[in-house]
């Protein structure tokens, strides 16, 4: 009997399109991953290419324990040890990730200021309440001033945070007081967001910082500047400009593409342009133009984190996550894929050339040879958006034969910002996290997990994400999700309230049914991991579960991570006190000392630590074990009899 071929995805539509790509002679990420194995030295952090005396390779000996003599020899030409090299590589990943999130935040802040000054027509402040909230947070006067006057101050203050030379970020004030103090004691409260990233690049240059612990400390500082700084600024200002997300019904999967309509996929990360494209695609003139070209209308969908942004605020359908970007084009039904920054494969242009799809780059920071470039001008955003939508419409008649759109769209509910969770649990007059805390204390909810991160072509698409999340909710762990994990969960049908009955444990299902929420809450894009930090802080501040995030029965994971952003996210979660497990591979195993520091010593310093487990079920069990450890420390590991006091018992109490 022929051996059954291992599939590359758990998603049936993706499997069918991988097969179609092979028939069409199209090379995809899955083929390339098969053809090229990862470098065994670079993947464990044992290669240094920071100067031209190298690259230097310092691998561990094969098939035996390292001897002291081996260790002595494991040095680069400059003398840098395997520890220094592994730590340098690791924190350069943090710098890359923190830079990506934070430059996104800076872009939002620049647009925000332009809007406040009336220099960006088409945009407006949509959420006055969030404007007030941020003004209070940052100590900006409200009084009788107009929204725009307040917003100018907020925009200027936000931009100043990137270049702050001393003191600490104002956004750190949102963290639990105990955590803020711990960061000060450890000397890792970030100054300016940019400064911490630049300092990493300086300290990892040849011949600068050669103490791996000191290097890793700077990695912590920069990562906090990402999660509690650049990412948080992005989220807060986007909420003010585009609205704080509230529950919204949307669809997911490649089946959201429509054969008879002009399909435009918006792919990337920043919502600045995509918000305008959403508006323009609904204009009657554009719909008429589409009809004049033979289409029945315009169908907009998203890919990766841009998808999450426009889903959270407008309910626009999600076509897929990172590993589905080429496959969407393989349908032959995508008339334009509009991209901005981050997680965009250069190969989409090559794939597009096999069909009729136009790849439209929009950011001066991210161009692809062969693609159409229509630069996004924030000062005339509607014009840029109209040009893009028109380009897509005019490409509709160029479709070649063989359009194939597999899969049925799956329903999902997204839009769970911190503000909305607070409102849903307590209502308008007493918004509160109390019901969540009470149900954690009484054990219906065992704990809370943040499961986030990318796809990785080295493992089966979406399998790690979905298996881990199912295992967690089965064990009564409420899951908060963002990024590509959220899209994987949506495609697996986990983001609807009915999923609680089908997949969640009894306790979690009871709570979800009572509140009317899914067991997996979609909090947004990867910069929106800052929403998870705020939600965790609200749980701390509500009381009854300790005084710091590190005391909560919570854990984090990125089962299919691949980007530097994921490392930065993991590092700021660990630095915030969260036990965080990554799958696929671990980039410091070339140095036992560096790995031990990240996996063990960081817990003593920050209350959170890293872990690595490629099996998603075993990783979920590690998270549950950590949650149980925290429950025990809080004294809520055993059910206790509740005693209702009568008046006599109360009088006895008073007498004491």
């Amino acid at each position: 009997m022929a051996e059954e071929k291992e599939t590359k995805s758990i998603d049936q539509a993706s499997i069918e399109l991988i097969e179609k790509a092979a028939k069409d002679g199209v090379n995809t990420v899955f083929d390339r991953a098969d053809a090229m194995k990862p470098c065994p030295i670079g993947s464990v952090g044992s290669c240094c290419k920071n100067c031209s005396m190298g690259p230097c390779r310092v691998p561990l000996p094969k098939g035996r324990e390292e001897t002291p003599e081996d260790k002595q020899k494991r040095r680069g030409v400059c003398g840098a040890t395997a520890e220094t090299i592994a730590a340098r590589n690791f924190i350069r990943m943090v710098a890359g990730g923190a830079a990506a999130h934070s430059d996104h935040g800076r872009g939002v802040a620049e647009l925000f200021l332009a809007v406040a000054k009336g220099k960006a027509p088409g945009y407006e402040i949509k959420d006055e309440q969030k404007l007030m909230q941020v003004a209070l947070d940052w100590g900006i006067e409200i009084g009788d001033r107009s929204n725009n006057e307040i917003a100018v101050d907020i925009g200027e203050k936000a931009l100043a945070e990137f270049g702050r030379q001393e003191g600490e970020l104002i956004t750190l004030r949102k963290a639990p007081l105990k955590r803020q103090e711990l960061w000060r004691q450890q000397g890792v409260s970030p100054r300016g967001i940019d400064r911490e990233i630049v300092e990493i690049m300086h300290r990892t240059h040849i011949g600068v910082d050669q103490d791996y612990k000191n290097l890793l400390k700077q990695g912590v500082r920069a990562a906090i500047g990402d999660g509690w700084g650049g990412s948080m600024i992005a989220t807060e200002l986007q909420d003010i400009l585009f609205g704080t997300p509230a529950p919204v019904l949307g669809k997911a999967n490649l089946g959201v593409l429509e054969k008879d309509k002009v399909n435009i996929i918006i792919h990337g990360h920043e919502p600045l342009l995509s918000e305008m494209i959403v508006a323009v695609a609904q204009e009657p003139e554009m719909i008429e133009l589409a009809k004049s070209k033979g289409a029945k209308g315009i169908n907009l969908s998203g890919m990766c984190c841009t998808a999450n942004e426009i889903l959270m605020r407008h309910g626009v359908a999600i076509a897929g996550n990172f590993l589905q970007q080429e496959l969407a084009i393989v349908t032959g039904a995508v008339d334009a894929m509009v991209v901005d920054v981050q997680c965009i494969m250069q190969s989409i242009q090559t794939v597009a050339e096999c069909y009729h799809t136009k790849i439209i780059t929009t950011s001066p920071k991210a161009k692809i040879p062969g693609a159409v470039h229509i630069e996004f001008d924030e000062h005339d955003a509607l014009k840029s958006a109209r040009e893009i939508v028109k380009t897509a419409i005019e490409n509709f008649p160029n479709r070649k034969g063989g359009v194939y759109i597999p899969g049925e769209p799956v329903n999902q509910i997204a839009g769970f910002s911190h503000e909305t969770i607070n409102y849903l649990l307590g209502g308008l007059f007493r918004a509160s996290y109390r019901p969540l805390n009470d149900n954690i204390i009484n054990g219906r909810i065992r704990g809370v997990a943040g499961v986030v991160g990318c796809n990785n072509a080295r493992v089966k698409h979406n399998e790690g994400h979905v298996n881990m999340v199912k295992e967690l909710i089965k064990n009564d762990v409420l899951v908060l999700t963002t990024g590509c994990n959220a899209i994987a969960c949506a495609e697996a049908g986990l983001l609807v309230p009915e999923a609680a009955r089908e997949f969640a444990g009894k306790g979690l299902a009871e709570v979800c049914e009572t509140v009317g929420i899914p067991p997996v809450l979609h909090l947004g894009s990867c910069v929106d991991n800052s929403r998870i930090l705020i939600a965790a802080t609200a749980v701390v501040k509500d009381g009854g579960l300790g005084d710091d995030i590190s005391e909560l029965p919570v854990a984090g994971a990125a089962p299919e991570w691949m980007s530097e952003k994921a490392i930065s996210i993991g590092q700021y979660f660990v630095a915030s006190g969260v036990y965080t497990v990554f799958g696929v591979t671990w980039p410091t195993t070339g140095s036992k000392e560096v790995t031990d520091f990240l996996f063990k010593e960081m817990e003593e310093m920050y209350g959170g630590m890293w872990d690595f487990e490629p099996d998603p079920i075993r990783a979920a069990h590690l998270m549950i074990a950590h949650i149980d450890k925290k429950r025990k420390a809080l004294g809520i590991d055993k059910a206790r009899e509740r005693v209702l006091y009568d008046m006599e018992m109360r009088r006895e109490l008073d007498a004491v």
Partner: protein
Amino acid sequence: MEYKIEKKPAPGRDEVEVLGDTFEEGTPEGEELGKWRQKLDSREDKLRYLQSGERYWFSEEWFGSEKRKTPA
């Protein structure tokens, strides 16, 4: 919310005015779907909500688990 007044026939009288539904639709549609923040109209309402709803950060006399702590 706006109160709905309905006219209904009454025994022994022609028509009487009766107060209609005073609840919000359970399945709002369109732009209103799932939205809740527009329920707060004025800036004063919004600031008051922040003090109560977001009291973890903005209430002056209530700091949750941190209320017994010396501020850092």
